[in-house]
């Protein structure tokens, strides 16, 4: 209890305070104060996180119990935080990137009314709070609290401009799809309780391996993975993420690129031991991840909305992370989470800067030639694109390569398909880059005066660009220098058990060199092709045809879901409402009443008012009674 890390509660506390202050005083605070409170609380959290990270790096990990959250019979779920390598790393990403994005937001959202502005920051702070809960939780229930909390904040922020019905629908869709995943998560939690009698990570993992049979573990992990599918936008629950771009761009950067969507990866990394013991799930994860990566990449090829491109790119990158998890490259996935957080946040914020400059025009077809108007944004975006495309020495190269090599070690087919995705990534990113910054401007300059964004926006861009460029060096492959993978060493305590279970196969250095050369070469070729093709892009009002159209329409997946799930469910609702409820059950209930009334109308006719009839009926009754008593043997 005397451990310094007991103070972990401070980390989520600050954003919570920020949320409360901004939320309750939204009508009185000035925008400036709101911004300071909103960003400042995250900064404080970041500082504490850094301090904790240092503690952890020095080998101090801790599970901090605060109070009994739920305690029923033998089941006890404490409100507890776990500070270890994995969580402290995520804390840094969340608070660090989060802080930058808050700062960025103060400028980006400046046009909002002051109470809306405060509402925005309170949501954002609440999100950070939830995300921190998710990461810090020492058991699945606390994680679930954060898990649902971030979903809620995502919902609130996507629907931030609540007057727009489309945005609201997008928000609702995001929440509902997340809920589908959450159900899987919940079921998994119950299953865990059923099997382990606890939800605390350390106690569960202590019982593994051997505590529970593989079949059940497969079930649990699959259910958890369903949760991850929802949160991290994997097939089949990915469609909400592109729609989620309805929210303000910094939100997309923070929630739908850097942090929330990686919660699924965090969760699987956290539960790595269970996954390692369930090879079937691992394969499922890998296949789903890869499929998502490819599918999203293909769609991204034909999108014209700059945020949509980035959104599908995010889905695709998340797919890679799951591929990494699926083939056992936990460190690689976490590494990719980190680098992705940097470069994707960078890209989004850059896109935000562009959108800001273009007065909320998001269609790339109306961009072009912005290079000269927005030099900082251009440069930082270029770094981001290079990073995501996987050009050495930018960070994306290292992390993606680590995953792909691990996939190759697992099965070359995975590698080749993954590589195909990577090539597409390079292509569409530079398509975006070229369409935005190169060539000539395609919209009316008299009305739009593209201009560089203010410092609050560019400084975070620059910082992120530096991180995106340099973060790769935290995980230099053994290929280049032995034992230089710092991250791997740092995370080793977390994944140690899994690594021994999985007994990694290694790819020989020579093969790895060939693979590297192949991929980098092909990617450069792709970039060149994309830039050449799209730098001279001219606005043409021609509809896409054939396969292009399919891609433009996102493989018609939304339509498919609508037809296969949404419509039938609504139809079923209507059917129940009108047919079964009103004409069925209620009719039956009322029918009893009617039957009585009908009986009443008929019965009273017996009362004919005619004495002869009365007596006749009496006599008949007597006859029947006598007959009954004397002749019925009962």
């Amino acid at each position, binding site marked *: 209890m005397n451990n310094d890390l007991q103070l972990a509660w401070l980390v989520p506390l600050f954003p919570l305070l920020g949320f409360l202050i901004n939320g309750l005083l939204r009508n009185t605070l000035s925008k400036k104060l709101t911004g300071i409170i909103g960003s400042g609380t995250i900064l404080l959290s970041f500082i504490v996180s850094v301090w904790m990270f240092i503690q952890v790096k020095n080998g101090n990990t801790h599970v901090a119990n605060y109070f009994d959250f739920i305690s029923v019979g033998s089941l006890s779920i404490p409100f507890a935080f776990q500070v270890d390598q994995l969580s402290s790393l995520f804390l840094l990403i969340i608070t660090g990137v989060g802080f930058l994005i808050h700062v960025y937001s103060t400028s980006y959202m400046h046009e909002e009314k002051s109470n809306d502005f405060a509402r925005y920051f309170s949501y954002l702070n609440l999100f950070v709070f939830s995300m921190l809960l998710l990461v810090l939780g020492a058991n699945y229930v606390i994680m679930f609290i954060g898990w649902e909390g971030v979903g809620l904040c995502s919902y609130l922020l996507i629907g931030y401009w609540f007057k727009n019905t489309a945005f609201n629908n997008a928000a609702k869709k995001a929440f509902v799809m997340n809920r589908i995943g959450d159900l899987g998560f919940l079921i998994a939690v119950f299953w865990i309780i059923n099997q382990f009698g606890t939800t605390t990570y350390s106690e569960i993992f202590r019982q593994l391996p051997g505590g529970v049979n593989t079949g059940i573990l497969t079930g649990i992990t699959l259910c958890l993975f369903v949760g991850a599918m929802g949160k991290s936008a994997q097939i089949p629950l990915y469609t909400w993420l592109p729609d989620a771009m309805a929210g303000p761009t910094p939100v997309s950067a923070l929630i739908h690129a850097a942090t929330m969507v990686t919660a699924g990866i965090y969760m699987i990394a956290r539960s790595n031991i269970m996954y390692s013991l369930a090879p079937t799930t691992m394969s499922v994860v890998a296949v789903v991840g890869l499929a998502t990566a490819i599918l999203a990449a293909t769609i991204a090829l034909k999108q014209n909305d700059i945020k949509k491109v980035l959104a599908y790119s995010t889905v695709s990158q998340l797919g890679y992370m799951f591929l990494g998890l699926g083939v056992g490259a936990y460190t690689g996935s976490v590494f990719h989470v980190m680098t992705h957080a940097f470069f994707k946040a960078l890209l989004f914020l850059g896109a935000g800067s562009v959108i800001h400059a273009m007065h909320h025009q998001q269609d790339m077809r109306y961009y072009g030639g912005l290079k000269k108007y927005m030099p900082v944004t251009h440069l930082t975006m270029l770094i981001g694109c290079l990073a995501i495309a996987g050009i050495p020495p930018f960070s994306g190269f290292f992390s993606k390569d680590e995953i792909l090599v691990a996939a190759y070690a697992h099965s070359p087919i995975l590698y080749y398909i993954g590589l195909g995705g990577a090539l597409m990534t390079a292509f569409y990113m530079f398509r975006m880059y070229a369409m935005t910054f190169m060539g000539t401007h395609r919209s009316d300059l008299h009305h739009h005066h593209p201009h560089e964004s203010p410092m609050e926006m560019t400084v975070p861009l620059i910082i992120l660009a530096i991180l995106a460029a340099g973060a790769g060096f935290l995980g230099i492959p053994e290929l280049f220098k032995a034992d230089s993978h710092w991250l791997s060493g740092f995370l080793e305590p977390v994944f140690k058990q899994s690594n021994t279970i999985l007994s990694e196969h290694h790819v020989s250095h020579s093969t790895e060199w060939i693979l590297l050369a192949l991929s980098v070469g092909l990617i450069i070729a792709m970039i060149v092709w994309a830039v050449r093709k799209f730098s001279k892009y001219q606005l043409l009002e021609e509809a896409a045809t054939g396969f292009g159209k399919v891609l433009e329409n996102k493989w018609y997946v939304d339509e498919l879901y609508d037809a296969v799930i949404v419509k039938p469910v609504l139809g079923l609702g209507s059917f129940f409402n009108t047919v079964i409820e009103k004409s069925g059950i209620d009719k039956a209930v009322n029918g009893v009443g009617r039957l009585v009334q009908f009986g009443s109308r008929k019965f009273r006719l017996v009362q004919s*008012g005619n004495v002869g009839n009365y*007596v006749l009926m009496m006599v008949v009754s007597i006859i029947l009674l006598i007959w009954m008593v004397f002749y019925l043997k009962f």
Partner: protein
Amino acid sequence: MPINYYIYLAVILFCIGVTGVLTRRNAIIIFMCIELMLNAVNLLLVAFSKMHHARALVADANTTVGTEAQLFVFFIMVVAAAEVSVGLAIIVMMYRNVHNVDINFLNRLKN
């Protein structure tokens, strides 16, 4: 005579009375049929009275067993007389109002 004969006779008379009640519409005749039913009962009671008396005589020559039934018949007659006076009064009242003694003539109370 076997008691059964009396039973049968009484039942037959009784049921003829019932049939009369069922088949006629004239209130007075119906009333008469009811009187017939009562008489059938009286006959039966007297027969039973004699039967029980005869049975009791075997043991006791001075027995009064059976008296009660005959007195019962007496009371039935008393009641019948009272009933007749009231019944005929009612029928007359109705006749005064509607000039009819058909039981179906007044048929306002139904359902």
